[in-house]
């Protein structure tokens, strides 16, 4: 940690948050808010005089409320940076008549109540997302009595109690009487592997963390009665099984089964009822203290960053990597990498391994000092352009300029254009051509698909980043769906031009699906808003013309939603079966002159 603080190439911004990310690989423009600490970081020597005179006492977050701190405080003894800070919401105020005791005692004069939040702008080539995890809050699991019984702790609270630097200086004490517990039980899978509450997934580290805790207890208190309630112990890593064996050898009891209920006894002990599935018996255990092995959940900031950078999430809410085996640290967005628990629950060793991998992936991209960009960009066909300006209006990247007054044709800044193709789809005059996804190329595919037996086919437009990837995921998962669904890949659902739909229907397609990323997840900021508007517009037109609007469907399918994709194909097939040959003929006739 201290290495980071003193490294000449690392600029450390704490109490700071990323609030905006724009741009693209090689040149991301970042905005960061650095919150005011009201103490000059570089001048503060962490002498602590200020905290000694501060009259405000608050629970200490670092110790999860098991100890207290003042309104001016250092986060913890080894903190980096080590300087003090003021929680201004707790502080009595800088008016000397009210308090300002800290200002009086600070020799270095580093306390400044006039500091304000700072906005920092910077440009970077790559981004590593290492936002970590949130420990599961067991409040909702009432059967374990976390909120009702004081001697039921979370594993993180337990960590603070057995830590030499913690509130009890490493002595394990019961919160109710400050005495040493004679027996301690651990409950595994709290918030993990459950279809009812918490996550369905395994949090990966809790088994080994508990085993580690039992070893710590047996080392300090050899006579202590230690029991672990579990579903199964996952000791899969290097050296893990040995620790498990050591724990058992030292007399820790492993009881297969999660408790059904916990009750408090008269002396504030805990009576645990459990079905021991190894012996098929109902057992009751009386313990002085109970520790809940809390699982991991995605960090609260995950979704906000995901929307800001157009990243993808798994159904569990962790970040989705570009490929689970071959690109485990890359995001689908070029130039963005994942490290640590942001990508999924993992232990320290794995986090460190992944972080080094992410660093190397970033270096691999940057070491040349230049970046090649995909030439999949929009081009204006000047002679068709009427300078109406709609393209500039729909571009999520402000990459198009049109001088409406001077009737100058639109022009595209190809460095800023990301290639979604929304402009080409919205242009009424065919004045924009989307490289590599031209009208001709896409219509060619649609026509080839519908050349024979069109009435039997399902036409699917799928965006590259979410829905096409979702279809691939259905494939990798071997989910079976009707064999008449045919995909046309586009970079973004925003590219799906109205004329592609009419062309499909005119050539006898019974049903058409437009699929893209969920609203808010669009790889091209918000291009799929235009998809939604356009599909709604086309469906209205269909209804007016007497074509059943149900035959055009819109569905948001993410890269992780293979099941949703397969289910949608089943649904499309059901709709297709309701479309008769006569209906198709009639549609063809209606669209003859469009």
């Amino acid at each position, binding site marked *: 940690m201290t290495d980071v603080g003193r490294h000449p190439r690392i600029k450390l911004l704490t109490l700071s948050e990323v609030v905006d990310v724009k741009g693209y690989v090689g040149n991301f423009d970042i905005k960061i808010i650095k919150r005011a600490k009201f103490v000059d970081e570089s001048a503060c020597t962490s002498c602590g005089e200020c905290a000694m005179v501060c009259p405000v006492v608050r629970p200490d977050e670092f110790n999860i409320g098991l100890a207290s701190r003042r309104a001016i405080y250092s986060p913890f003894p080894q*903190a980096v940076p080590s300087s003090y800070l003021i929680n201004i919401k707790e502080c009595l105020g800088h008016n000397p008549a009210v308090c300002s005791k800290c200002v009086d005692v600070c020799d270095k004069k580093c306390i400044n109540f006039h500091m304000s939040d700072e906005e920092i702008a910077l440009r970077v080539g790559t981004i590593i997302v290492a936002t970590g995890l949130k420990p599961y809050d067991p409040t909702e699991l009432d059967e374990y009595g976390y909120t009702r019984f004081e001697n039921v702790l979370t594993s993180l609270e337990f960590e603070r109690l057995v830590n030499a630097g913690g509130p009890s200086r490493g002595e394990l004490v019961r919160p109710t009487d400050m005495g040493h517990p004679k027996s301690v039980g651990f409950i595994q899978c709290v918030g993990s592997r459950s279809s009812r509450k918490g996550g369905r997934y395994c949090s990966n580290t809790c088994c080994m963390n508990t085993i580690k805790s039992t070893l710590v207890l047996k080392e300090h208190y050899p006579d202590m009665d230690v029991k672990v309630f579990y579903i199964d112990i996952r000791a899969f890593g290097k050296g893990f099984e040995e620790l498990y064996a050591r724990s058992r050898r030292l007399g820790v009891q492993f009881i297969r089964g999660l408790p059904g209920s916990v009750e408090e006894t008269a002396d504030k002990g805990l009576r645990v009822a459990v079905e021991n599935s190894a012996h098929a018996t109902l057992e009751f255990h009386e313990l002085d203290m109970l520790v809940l092995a809390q699982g991991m959940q995605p960090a609260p900031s995950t979704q906000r960053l995901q929307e800001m950078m157009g990243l993808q999430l798994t159904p569990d809410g962790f970040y989705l990597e570009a490929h689970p085996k071959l690109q485990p640290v890359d995001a689908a967005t070029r130039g963005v990498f994942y490290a640590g628990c942001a990508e999924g629950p993992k232990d320290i060793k794995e986090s460190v391994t992944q972080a080094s991998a992410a660093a190397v992936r970033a270096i691999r991209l940057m070491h040349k000092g230049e970046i090649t960009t995909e030439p999949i960009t929009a081009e204006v066909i000047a002679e068709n352009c009427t300078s109406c300006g709609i393209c500039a209006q729909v571009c999520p990247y402000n990459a198009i300029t049109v001088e409406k007054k001077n009737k100058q044709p639109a022009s595209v800044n190809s460095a800023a254009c990301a290639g979604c193709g929304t402009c080409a789809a919205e242009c009424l005059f065919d004045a924009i051509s989307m*490289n590599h996804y031209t009208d001709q190329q896409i219509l060619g595919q649609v026509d080839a698909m519908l050349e024979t037996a069109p009435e039997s086919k399902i036409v699917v437009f799928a965006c590259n980043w979410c829905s096409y990837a979702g279809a691939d995921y259905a494939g990798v998962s071997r989910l079976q769906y009707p064999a008449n669904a045919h995909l046309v890949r586009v970079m973004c659902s925003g590219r799906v031009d109205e004329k592609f739909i009419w062309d499909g229907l005119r050539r006898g397609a019974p049903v058409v699906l437009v699929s893209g990323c969920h609203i808010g997840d669009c790889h091209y900021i918000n291009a799929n808003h235009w998809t939604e508007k356009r599909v709604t517009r086309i469906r209205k037109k269909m209804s007016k013309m007497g074509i059943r609007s149900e035959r055009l469907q819109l569905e948001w399918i993410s890269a992780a939603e293979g099941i949703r994709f397969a289910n949608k194909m089943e649904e499309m097939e059901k709709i297709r079966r309701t479309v008769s040959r006569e209906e198709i003929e009639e549609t063809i006739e209606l669209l003859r002159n469009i």
Partner: protein
Amino acid sequence: MTTQSVTQKSGGSGSDPRIGVYVCHCGLNIAQSVNCRQVAENAAAADGVILSKDIPYACSEPGQHQIKQDILDNRLNRVVIASCSPRLHEPTFKQMVQSVGLNPYMMEMANLREQCSWVHMNDVDNATRKAETLVDMAIARARHLEPLTEDILPLTKKTLVIGGGIAGIQAALDLADCGYDVTLVEKQPSIGGIMARLDKTFPTMDCSI
């Protein structure tokens, strides 16, 4: 090797499409549910297709070698690879055609594995029919492909690391030690994350800080 040369037609001159089609078996991944030879034969009849073959593994060294040789021997100016998802091997095949002088954007893929053989596993007839259509679609698209050139843009040799837990710290140090400027952003007043709160850590039972 079941590779078979189905047809050899003389193509037009100049920039007329001269397309080579390769239907990959991917071992049995595709061939189990799709009659690859039939798909290749069907594709041979399409406009602009100079040759059409089925091939055991298009991505393998011998597979790529064969395709490259065909491009040179037959002056192919477009290639359709019907194999796995382009999300997997598009870069591989782009590089392959580029190495024999073809613009990488003149290569098109049909996704016969993730979107056909794996999702219609017990339905060889319909899977094969769909594969034929997917290849026809890819050929139709290939006819209209245009060469494109990649732009080279300047790059900022700096990294933003979001999060100062053990993962963020490690990534920042590795990058900085390699000479890259790093900005490490942490929401809390100190870096360290969850790990700093732990007492001992498994499997070595040493201190966390």
